[in-house]
């Protein structure tokens, strides 16, 4: 295996809010290799987006702060960089695709100009003509029909799917090493989602970037990702290859997530929700944050008092559960019979 292009080590991010300090990311570690897609999944508020913003150095100013840990991109620790150096890296080495393409493009600038802007932000030598040629190339790459005339159009003349394609074109304009896609398909029609995922795949092939795909949709993860990290209350609770994780989930939370997915092979079976609600930022349970909702807990004291570390289940497959050996046999969240 090649060296990881991005290596996040023990990242802990704090948010200071009026109601107290929130630990948005708690001891998060993962590696990302070139050309690999890492799915980052979890419920709302589980710290997926905060992890991405930490990597970009874009935590809300005055509120968010990386308290501990390292974010190593190509040998450089981003947490130690000055704001100016960090800005040079954003958009050049790390590209981002945001959730809502309709508000992420500047309404008063043509799409072509916005691609040129992204290029010019990192290369003062980009002329308008050469930038426009590159913009047309990029729009062609992301599958925008008739790119030659589409470059001169404004975002409101694009459909939602095309806007997201344009966002991807902008994100990969500078051949980034890491591409962060934050819920790239959530705001789109289901019919468009598959197309946009195809474009993301093409973008990864073109740039050979490592992709962090943030989503709450396990279906997209199964389709796109090579490896998955499941987040819960700011912590990575299980990580492994897509195959390992779906075939052999080793954390009760992952089991619960999978059980709440409808399966074509099991039509008519009742979906099993995970009881309870995800913890809010200021009120995270002690020990294992999942224990109040965990069917494996059974009042055991370790779960309440000790934060479970990630332990190896198999090669490259880790789970943060004190009793992960019990998980496969426990028959957690078993689907009830057909109705």
């Amino acid at each position, binding site marked *: 295996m090649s060296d990881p292009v991005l290596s996040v080590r023990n990242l802990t991010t704090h948010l200071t809010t009026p109601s107290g300090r929130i630990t948005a990311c708690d001891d998060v570690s993962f590696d990302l290799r070139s050309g690999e897609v890492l799915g980052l999944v979890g419920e709302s508020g589980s710290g997926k987006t905060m992890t991405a913003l930490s990597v970009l150095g874009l935590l809300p100013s005055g509120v968010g702060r990386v308290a501990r840990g390292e974010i190593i991109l190509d040998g450089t620790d981003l947490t130690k960089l000055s704001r100016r150096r960090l800005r040079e890296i954003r958009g050049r080495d790390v590209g981002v695709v*945001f959730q809502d393409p309709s508000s992420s493009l500047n309404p008063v600038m043509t799409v072509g100009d916005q691609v040129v802007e992204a290029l010019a932000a990192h290369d003062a030598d980009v002329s308008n003509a050469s930038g426009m040629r590159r913009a047309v190339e990029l729009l062609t790459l992301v599958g925008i029909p008739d790119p030659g005339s589409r470059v001169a159009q404004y975002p409101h003349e694009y459909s939602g799917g095309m806007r997201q394609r344009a966002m991807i074109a902008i994100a990969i304009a500078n051949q980034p090493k890491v591409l962060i896609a934050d819920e790239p398909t959530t705001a789109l029609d289901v019919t468009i989602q598959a197309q946009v995922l195809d474009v993301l795949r093409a973008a990864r092939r073109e740039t050979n970037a490592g992709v962090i795909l943030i989503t709450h949709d396990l279906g997209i993860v199964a389709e796109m990702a090579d490896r998955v990290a499941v987040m819960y209350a700011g912590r990575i609770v299980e990580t492994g290859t897509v195959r390992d994780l779906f075939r052999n989930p080793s954390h009760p939370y992952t089991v619960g997530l999978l059980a709440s997915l409808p399966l074509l092979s099991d039509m008519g079976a009742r979906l099993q929700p995970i009881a309870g609600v995800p913890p809010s930022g200021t009120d995270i349970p002690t020990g294992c944050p999942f224990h109040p909702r965990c069917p494996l807990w059974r009042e055991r004291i370790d779960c309440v008092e000790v934060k479970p570390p990630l332990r190896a289940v198999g090669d490259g497959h880790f789970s943060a559960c004190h009793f992960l050996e019990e998980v496969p046999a426990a028959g957690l969240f078993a689907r009830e019979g057909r109705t």
Partner: protein
Amino acid sequence: MTDRGVSLRRAALRRFLRRPSNLVSVVFLVLVVIAALWPTSWLPHDPTASDLAARLRPPAWLDGGSWSYVLGTDNIGRDVFSRIVLGSRWSLVISGTAVVIAAVLGITAGVIAGYRGGWVDSITMRAVDVQLAFPVIILVIAVVGVVGTGITQLILVMGVTGWAQYARIVRGSTLSIRNQDYVEAAVAQGASAWRIMTRDILPNLASEIIVLTSFNMARLLLLESGLSFLGLGIQPPRPSWGGMVGDARDYLQSGWWILAFAGGTIALAVLSFNFLGDGIRDALDPRTRHVGTAQSAEEAAS
């Protein structure tokens, strides 16, 4: 598909032209601008030449008037019409230049304050408060007292003091634009603060700035007339609307038309700029139709 951009613009233009007051304002302002820019050789009389034999002639349509002096003559026999036409030149040039200075200063301060936030914002906004609380006329009197009257001083003082109106409104809009996703996206693309302010924020302020400029033209035109009226603005023999009103005060009994036409021109021009600003705003954003119109007109006139 490109037609949509054009048709949006056309729809805005149609909305603008639908209101008669807009149309009248535009026609009047175009006439004033033409009068200001056209060479004065076509005028029936030299605006500065006095003719004591023709003192205080009434307008042409009254007894004793002649078509040679359409709007009558003043107390030393100068043609009122010619003076109003030439007066437009100085009034417009001075308020126009001052508005440009005010806009450049105010927009710069407003965008920086709104984008940077924090102490930069606090200091700028306190400075705006101080500026708005301080009567400009007093400041002009002070400046004129120190360096004497002159068009350059007038333009500079009006321009420099006019920044606050721009800064306050531009800052507010910048605050809301700053929180838009596309600004965050630009930050994530590694754009510098300067790039974001000039490429992402400023173009989105364009319609607002156009409207503000129209209101500010009205405000500074009125201010300039007021100063000329007081003798602090444009100096004789150069004709100015405010100066004509000032001179005419003494002849209200014998020559009311001097004041009526000069004052009427000022009123019409100020009103037209205000209508224009209102009209453009409503045309560009149909949702805000008639909301806040009265308030902003009031603000501009104050």
